[in-house]
């Protein structure tokens, strides 16, 4: 009997391969949906098992390596994110996927992400990490070569960083599994407190931390390693991006948590605290804060619907990193909560984008407008998603954001608090840009016969939108699961209420009173005169008559004043910096080829002699 963890991990891959082999429209979609649904079903089933036992473990020995897998509360939460959003994304792909190639790699990346979440040793963690990266790279490659190469280069950088870190750890510890690694670092921490010699020196520790931070930072899209994300997120199947941004970036977040699990104690004792936060965590948090601002501001200035959400995704990951970085139990719970809500609303957003692109074939804001009348279902979903991302109570986006705010500010971190506030405002700003350009205003005449979302996409969006609402009104459901990770009641309260002791949030009361308020307003509204529907051309244009030939919408450069205000800062670009570095490296290679590796045998002989002499002098 094969273990359920194996089924969870490999069912999507199996389905992907089957879909690839039986390349028949209809069958491959069915297989893929089953492949995405099976892990979800097993995960839901595993919930009951986890209620009675702390974890489900499984290990497999392959060619001398022992691969270990574990499902406990933390990985269950993350795997559920992958399950739900991945399922929704696969449903969305039923409408948008063009061929079996996409099915194979989309499902392969789902396998990778399950593997990362369930891995219990560094080697399987790394392998699945690479599967995930490779599959998502292949997805991008099909759409845009340049974007995929950028993604590939940075991913390779991250992969090497992780590999070196793993190598260093293995060299000293002699084991890969998380338990032993964690134990060794814990003992190290105790030793350093006693003052005796430690296995890892301070510098080695710093190196491992830096390497892991690079590796996970690339995947999560942390500033300044975020440059791949806008291109890669936008240049692929948008249904797949729901998974890419909603789930795959969570692997980076999960990685940050792995840093805490493996190295946390040692790092905390070695480097001390800033205020209440561990110093190493403060680095993560501060990077997260900058990520919020940079991602948000750049999102507001985009002209492409996919790019806007790609940058917005980066910005939201910043919140999660801030929560993780602050490092208290509450803030980590808040971060995981935000990871959940980010997956829910950003998955929903990318499915909406997929619908829009699927139905209109346009990606630029300047070609869209007035779609709310033509796509009411999609607009309703977008409404939920917008309110959720903007942090409007009572939706899940507010609950998680509120937790992060409270957790950060309660730890007396004023600068991070200011960054968070700025982030929430910039969220408003870019969302309104999306809303204005896509849903409202004047509709270009060629979009007049746009149809609403196809059924699979509508179902997928419906699942995510429903969860957005449910987890917002009843935030205690999620909080209860998160409390189980730490094994104590960090967030108290009922299923409707989050109670931190120094702040309370009750989703139900807000819903009730919002409904009451809206009812009062509606009564006033309906007592007034009857309304008459007027077309967009019958608006006040300083008295001028207009027809639909006129452009009545701000189509480009919506936030021009912002651009002007930020002109100085926008001149700096990490993307350009990396490109410059790239071209320097090319130039350097050219120089080297020209002067040193010039193909002259005599020259090589001289080099060899020189090296031998140097070695001899060194005393080898």
């Amino acid at each position: 009997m094969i273990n359920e963890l194996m089924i969870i991990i490999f069912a999507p891959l199996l389905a992907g391969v089957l879909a690839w082999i039986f390349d028949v429209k209809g069958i491959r979609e069915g297989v893929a949906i089953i492949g995405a649904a099976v892990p979800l079903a097993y995960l839901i089933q595993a919930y009951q098992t986890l209620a009675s036992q702390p974890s489900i473990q499984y290990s497999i020995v392959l060619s001398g390596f022992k691969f270990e897998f574990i499902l406990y509360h933390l990985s269950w939460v993350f795997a559920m994110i992958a399950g739900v959003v991945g399922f929704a994304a696969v449903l969305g792909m039923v409408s948008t996927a063009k061929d079996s190639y996409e099915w194979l790699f989309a499902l392969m990346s789902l396998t990778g992400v399950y593997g990362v979440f369930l891995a219990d040793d560094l080697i399987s963690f790394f392998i699945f990490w690479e599967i995930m990266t490779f599959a998502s790279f292949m997805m991008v490659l099909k759409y845009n070569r340049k974007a995929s190469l950028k993604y590939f280069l940075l991913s390779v950088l991250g992969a090497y960083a992780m590999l070196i870190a793993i190598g260093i750890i293995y060299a000293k510890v002699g084991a890969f599994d998380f338990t032993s690694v964690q134990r060794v670092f814990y003992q190290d921490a105790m030793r350093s407190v006693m003052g005796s010699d430690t296995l890892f020196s301070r510098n080695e520790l710093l190196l491992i931390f830096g390497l892991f931070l690079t590796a996970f930072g690339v995947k999560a899209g942390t500033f300044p390693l975020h440059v791949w994300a806008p291109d890669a997120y936008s240049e692929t199947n948008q249904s797949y991006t729901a998974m890419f941004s909603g789930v795959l970036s969570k692997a980076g977040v999960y990685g940050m948590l792995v840093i805490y699990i493996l190295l946390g104690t040692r790092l905390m004792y070695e480097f001390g605290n800033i205020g209440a936060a561990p110093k190493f965590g403060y680095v993560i948090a501060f990077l997260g804060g900058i990520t919020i601002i940079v991602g948000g501001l750049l999102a507001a200035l985009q002209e492409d619907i996919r790019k806007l959400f790609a940058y917005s995704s980066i910005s939201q990951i910043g919140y999660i990193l801030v929560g993780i970085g602050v490092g208290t139990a509450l803030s980590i719970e808040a971060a995981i909560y935000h990871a959940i809500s980010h997956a829910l609303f950003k998955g929903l957003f990318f499915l909406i984008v997929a619908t829009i692109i699927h139905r209109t074939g346009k990606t630029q804001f300047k070609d869209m407008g007035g779609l709310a009348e033509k796509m009411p279902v999609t607009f309703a979903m977008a409404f939920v998603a917008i309110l959720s991302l903007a942090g409007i109570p009572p939706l899940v986006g507010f609950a998680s954001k509120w937790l992060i705010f409270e957790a950060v500010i309660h730890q007396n971190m004023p600068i991070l608090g200011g960054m968070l506030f700025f982030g929430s405002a910039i969220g408003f700003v870019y969302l309104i840009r999306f809303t204005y350009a896509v849903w409202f205003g004047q509709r270009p005449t060629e979009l007049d016969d746009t149809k609403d979302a196809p059924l699979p996409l509508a179902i997928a969006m419906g699942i995510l939108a429903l969860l957005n609402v449910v987890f917002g009104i009843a935030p205690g459901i999620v909080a209860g699961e998160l409390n189980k990770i730490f094994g104590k009641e960090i967030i108290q309260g009922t299923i409707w209420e989050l109670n931190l002791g120094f702040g309370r949030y009750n989703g139900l009361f807000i819903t009730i009173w919002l409904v009451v308020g809206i009812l009062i307003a509606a009564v006033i509204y309906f007592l007034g005169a009857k309304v008459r529907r007027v077309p967009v051309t019958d608006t006040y244009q300083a008295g001028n008559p207009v027809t639909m030939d006129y452009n009545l919408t701000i189509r480009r450069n919506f936030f021009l004043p912002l651009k002007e205000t930020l002109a100085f800062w926008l001149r700096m670009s990490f993307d350009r910096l990396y490109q410059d570095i790239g071209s320097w490296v090319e130039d350097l290679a050219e120089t080297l080829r020209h002067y040193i590796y010039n193909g002259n045998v005599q020259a090589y002989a001289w080099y060899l002699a020189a090296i031998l002499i140097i070695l001899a002098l060194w005393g080898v």
Partner: protein
Amino acid sequence: MVDWRLFEPLFEFARRKSLWIVAFCTGCGGIEMPPLMTSRYDLERFGMMPNPAPRMADLFLITGYVTPKTLKRIIITYELQPDPKYVMAHGSCPLNGGVYWDAYNAIKHLDKYIPVDVIIAGCMPRPEAVMDGINKIMEMIEKGTADGWKRYKENYEYYRKNQDELFGEGWREKEARRWIPWLMDRKKEE
């Protein structure tokens, strides 16, 4: 539904005491508005407020002569306003052409094209005269005789006929399209 006729006196009082002005200051009378609004005469005593958006305006001020070109805008702006709406015209020119009685490009009788409730004669009327006109329109609202908006609805064919005679049939569409070729050309240049 509630029978709102019972509250009609209250509504009339509110309408009288809260006239929001949208001023079409194309002609010479525009300069009479600043003293009326500022500390010399202070129209805000009567709850009047200048308001740039016609959708929430009550009183439409047409100050001075009206050309066919501005009349098109005046009609469009007038039709944007919600009922009940009142129109007040300054000066002799909207009344009968005034000094432009034989000019090819000034409207002679504004009330042939939109219903005008009060016309203040004079070239130009002094601010006191305008205040008097405003008092007059308040009285008319109280008595219920300021019914231009009703007349416009009831006699729409008459007004429409006069407008069409002056501008030609389908003038809105034509006026809107008039500039399109030139706008399109500019777009190509970009």
